[in-house]
């Protein structure tokens, strides 16, 4: 795999990670505003989901 391809894959991975984390943070904010039953959900860390 040449350096050009490696750089492209790395750029895509970095962009993907940034989009994923940004989207996750935004969803949490929206969910916290809307949900009646609290933040307990798949990523809450409580392990009950």
């Amino acid at each position: 795999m040449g350096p050009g391809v490696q750089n492209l894959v790395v750029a895509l991975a970095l962009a993907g990670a940034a989009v994923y984390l940004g989207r996750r943070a935004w969803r949490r904010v929206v969910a916290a505003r809307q949900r009646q039953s609290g933040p307990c959900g798949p990523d809450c860390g409580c392990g009950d989901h």
Partner: protein
Amino acid sequence: MSAGLRPQPLPPETAVRPLRVALVGNPNCGKSTLFNALTGRRQRVANFPGVTVDRAEGEYRHDGATVSVVDLPGMYSLAPESPDEAIAVDVLLGRLPGAEPPDVIVIVADAENLERNLFLATEILELGRPTVIALNRVDRLAHAGMQIDVVELIHELGVVVIPVVATRGEGMDRLRHAVSRAATLPAPTLDAIRAAAGAQGAPAGAALAADQRYRWIAGVMERTVTRRPRPARLSDRVDAVVLHRVWGPIIFVGLMLVMFQAMFSWARPLADGIQALVAATAAGIAAVLPPGELRSLLVDGALGGVGSVLVFLPQIAILFLFIGLLEDSGYMARAAFVMDRYMRPLGLHGKSFIPLISGYACAVPAIMSTRTIQHPKERMATIMVVPLMSCSARLPVYTLLVAAFVPAITVGGLFSLQGLTMLGMYLLGTVAALGAAAVFRRTLLRSETRALIIELPPYSLPSLRVLGNSVWQRVRLFLRRAGTVIFAISVLLWGLAAYPRARGADGRPVPPEQQLSQSALGRIGHAIEPAVRPLGYDWKIGVSMVASFAAREVFVSTMGTIYGVADAGDSRRALAQRLRAERNPVTGRAAYTPLIAMGLMAFYVFALMCTSTVTMTHKETGGGWRGALWAALQFTYMLVMAYAAAFAIYRGGLLLGLGGGA
């Protein structure tokens, strides 16, 4: 029963939507186990009252129709005394906005404690809604010296009674059939009860007085239950020791000690295995990919970050195995009873103990479980201190620092110093929680502390299936976090550590350590450094601490990524070894010392670095501005405590002449 059992057509709306069924009953009668058996869901179950504090929903198919089931928190009567009971009553009576009352109510009654369970049952029968009674745990009757005449019970109550053993899934088909049929039958009435209680003159719908209800229940028990005398149960003999004034607390502390020892000693071989697997994967990637950006991203960034967190998987599993054992054996409620004596002078109710112990796993469900505490100020004080209990997300941080800086020696020929240090961190959090509760209860949340009344469940051998499920759920969640959030953060941090690429005067790439220092991450770290320098930390720890506000484990993955970049792919050494070997490039002295590690661990004991916990506190303390104030107070007082403790340890250590690092 006042009406015949001839089936009637379903109400028109139930023909097009699923039949709605609510499971209700006393706390710890097996509702959630029955819910799991009916729906195939994995709702959390344990052997103490108050496990379910919110409604949970699931469904199953029967005779081609979908049946929707809601599992409700336990309650002793329809007059709620705590927030979790209020939820159950609201759902049952259809008081929740947008939710109709259930079509069929399934009263889950513990066969061993039928008399107490019938109190709630009669109240529900008074509602005049289609009802079925699931008589749970009938397999224990013989051992308890009891026999229940189910046919007579059906006759007395005027309602279908199905004997079930929810833990083994016995009786589920009959129960499903009875539920579907109940929706088409006329609802039972309480005419017989009213007649027997001499309350015929009471206006329709008026509730019977408690003494009338108990009198009627006593009669039912006499006619349906036979008991034979039995010798003192093993459970009673065990309780004589476990609940003893002196032995009780000693046994509790001993169990905690065993748990933390196990987390260190049992997990070691497995952790070493995972470390070897991570190193082998890194070597495999290095063998396939030529040197370059992508190889560095995968080996130094992704594997450096995620791999350094994955190593702690066995310890997380052991922690949850022990907590599951304590919960399922029936010990947890007893521990609450034993510890009530010590918590009362601090202003905490004995019921606060279970949320506090649950906090060892995760503060989010622990805060939710405070709903079982009736008095608002006692509940609020518990919410405010629960996050001081060291949750499982702190475990990787403690373990990394203990493994790096505490010698692996045995103390007293029995306990490892590393295990004792871990226990010390958990004790520090626990003592801080109790101390903070005492302060809250004497200032903002002052009120009288009430006596503890708690039901002690029978001891039982923990079910391997339930235990395995509980541990698996936690392991799965940990792996999911490692594979999503921690992976993404590791990739992003690698990008910040790797760019912009620094060049020397000759235009060639600079050494990795210099590249790291001049990268975007390095610059952010140097900006943060003045705030953490008084604690003895360098910019690398500062950056990792800030990143760990996303999730505490991210501290470890960030350090893993930073050292992955700094060491340019040397994945053979574990992160702990790298930290020990780290030297200040200027002075040549050790960059990190045991003193710094102790201060850092103390910081993580006290700091509230968990957005989910802050959100949950906001909601459970009333939401809106009021909740926001409580959540802000919680975050702030814990951060101040964390900084002060880390500062005192580091500066105090320096004054005592202990090593302070670079």
